[in-house]
């Protein structure tokens, strides 16, 4: 009993959860509008997109890599898809848009995967380069003007809600249907990471690349899968952004990749690879979302929010780093009296 409590308490997820609870209580005490169903819906709503991106970033980080091109891939996928459907005056449902976005994501993911797995370019450099190339290519060749008059299918998807609540002032808060996409991505990813040799291979590569090679894991193929799969997820996340905004703006997402990576790291994934969980990742996303959404409720102005978010990242990752350092420094000679 005591052991299992210590096991839970030793986990990074536990501290993130505590932080979230404390933060919620503090915000709730200052402004009781926070502890309502409608504000919960609002937070979930604004966390969906980052949540999907974060699942991708989680996989890459577990493998010991990093992908800073995820938002560029997402932007390319959503904007190009919207543009094509808009230009061709497509009137059908959302499915084609999602398939197209996934397709664009996959192609760009394979590009990343080729550079990293076969040309052995370090992931940070490779994705920094592709991120820039993708962005520039799109703005120049495909367009840079936002599309507000989105095709019908996207419009309808954006209006589709799972549940709606109304507060006493008559403001409506809704749980959008795109939540199902996040849940779907989570389920598939959880299954891959936990129950397939491919997923365990990702953990193995992140733990020790040479050992993984000696054990017989196909490193190139695994890396290719990682970046291709993350491309798909990024494409989906981008499309979700357009759906929820009912607007496709190619400049919306740029720069958000750092917040995504920060959320994953706060959730306990070590940037050096091999460690982390989807639960932790979702907790990290929740924390970051609550921070950036709700501090306004307790009167913290928006530029201070960025300060506080930065601080949380520093503290969140600092705790992990400090623990690792302490463990390394710990002396354990049994000294005789």
């Amino acid at each position, binding site marked *: 009993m005591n052991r299992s409590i210590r096991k839970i308490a030793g986990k990074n997820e536990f501290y993130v959860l505590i932080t979230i609870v404390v933060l919620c209580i503090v915000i709730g005490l200052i402004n009781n509008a926070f502890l309502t169903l409608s504000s919960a819906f609002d937070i979930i709503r604004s966390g969906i997109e980052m949540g999907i991106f974060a699942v991708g970033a989680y996989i890459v980080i577990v493998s010991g890599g990093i992908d800073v091109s995820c938002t560029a891939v997402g932007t390319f996928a959503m904007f190009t898809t919207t543009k094509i459907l808009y230009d061709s005056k497509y009137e059908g449902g959302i499915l084609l848009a999602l398939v197209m976005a996934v397709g664009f994501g996959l192609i760009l993911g394979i590009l990343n995967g080729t550079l990293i797995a076969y040309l052995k370019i370090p992931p940070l450099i490779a994705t920094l380069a592709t991120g820039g190339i993708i962005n520039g290519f799109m703005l120049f060749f495909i367009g840079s003007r936002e599309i507000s008059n989105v095709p019908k299918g996207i419009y309808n998807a954006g209006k589709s809600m799972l549940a709606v609540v109304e507060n006493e002032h008559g403001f409506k808060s809704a749980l959008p249907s795109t939540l199902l996409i996040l849940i779907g991505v989570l389920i598939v990813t959880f299954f891959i990471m*936990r*129950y*397939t*040799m*491919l*997923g*365990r291979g990702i*953990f*193995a590569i*992140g*733990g*020790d690349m*040479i*050992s*993984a090679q*000696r*054990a*017989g*894991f196909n490193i190139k193929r695994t890396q290719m899968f990682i970046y291709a799969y993350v491309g798909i997820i990024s494409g989906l996340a981008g499309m979700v952004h357009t759906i929820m905004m009912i607007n496709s703006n190619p400049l919306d997402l740029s720069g958000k990749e750092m917040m995504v990576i920060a959320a994953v790291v706060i959730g306990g994934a070590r940037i050096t*690879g*091999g*460690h982390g969980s989807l639960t932790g990742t979702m907790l990290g996303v929740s924390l970051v979302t609550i921070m950036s959404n709700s501090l306004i409720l307790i009167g913290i102005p928006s530029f201070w929010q960025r300060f506080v978010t930065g601080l949380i990242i520093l503290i969140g990752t600092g705790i992990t780093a400090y623990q690792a350092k302490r463990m390394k*420094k*710990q*002396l*354990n*000679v*049994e*000294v*005789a009296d």
Partner: protein
Amino acid sequence: MSEVFLSVNNVFKSFAGVQALKGVSISIGKGEIRCLAGENGSGKSTLIKVISGFYTPDSGEIIIEGNKHTALSPIESIRNGIQVIYQDFSIFPNLTVAENISLNSQLADNKRLMNWAQIRANAQAALNRIGVKMDLDIKVEMLSVADKQLVAISRALLQNAKLIIMDEPTTALTQKEVSSLFKIIKQVQKEGIATLFVSHKLDEVLEISEKVTILRNGENVVDGDVKDFDMSKFVYYMTGREIVSTTFAPKTGDKEPLLKVENLSLKGGFKDISFELFKGEILGITGLLGSGRTELALSIFGAHPANKGNIYVKGKKVKIHSILDAIRNKIAYVPEDRLTEGLFLPQSINRNIQVSVLKRYRKKLGIYDKKSAKENVQKWVKELSIKTADPELPVVTLSGGNQQRVVLAKWLASDPEILILNGPTVGVDIGSKTDIHQIIRNLAEKGFGIIVISDDIPEVLHNCNRILIMKKGRIVGETDNRSITEKELSMNLSQA
């Protein structure tokens, strides 16, 4: 004569014109414990890589259980029951014990999905085979070195190993752990599993092995029953020269100690440590792993400052709170694990030696004086006879013994007076070992005060004029090198 499991016949292998193996042969019977010995560069590791299928020999044949292979792939080697346990065990620190044991066999069986219940059951069964109890759900990074090794052995057994090749398996183990490892090797031998033991710790080789194969310069030197060997014969075959061990006698005259430590204590490290070190002396501190010997060294060097007690350098009380304090007081420390603590492996020899004294090569305006730095480095490369074509080459290209010399050079370049050497010859072959011992003695003769921390008993006895014995964080005895034998000292150490 037992049945032959593996025989390698007349294998040649060259790399870019360098002939690593020149017609090497070795044969291992079923359930045999054989030792493969040789100095660094003798071709041991190349031979292992040929057997495990990582290298394809230029010519020669490999026969496993009667089947001839000219080109063996790693996966074929594994399917034929050959398992290599590398020095780093090739484990995944971030995964659990159960997964580490089972993952490789899952891969070899081409499984795509993870059946966690099955994985745990397999892991438990493998652990039971060697009679070890371990928490299956703990992450391997939390385990001791010895337990990590047990995980690697269990993993090999799970893959139906018929031959386990262990590369330097005892380097980081305590004496107790070594004997339990040997028990396990004997136990799996009863199941008909052969072990090829790669080691240059001679006493261990003589204890565990039945047969010995010795390589030198890529050729077979001798092959035979371990009974026909003794220590000096063994050393002769390995190095090709007679190595005479002499004891060290210092030329001391000073009354005042160079370093005096008084009632030094560190929580979780050691307690009430007092000793003196004189100029020209080599003081040995010996004790088992976990006796506090390394902590003591790190404390004097400022890496783990002591909680209580005093340190005097040349009669003056000094405060050592940081490594910088220690360097200012002319104390240098050569760490045990030269690879992670002492060197920047991908950087040049030149830069590695200069790193601790960069400040000295500052010309006006803080510009770096490349020329005089280089001259100084050349001096040390010559003095310590570091074998390299060019000091601009990365350190990683050097052999273990030469890397150790680079670490020494790095610290000597900072003009220390007190030199603390922690395990100066760990992982170094016997020839280089003798050379390093000679270097240490020369340094002592030049007036350095040297502390050698080591559990290599012959090393301590032959090279130190005084020896302190540490146990459970305390000094439990002091002796000189003439009044105690190897056996007595090793008995003394292993008694609880």
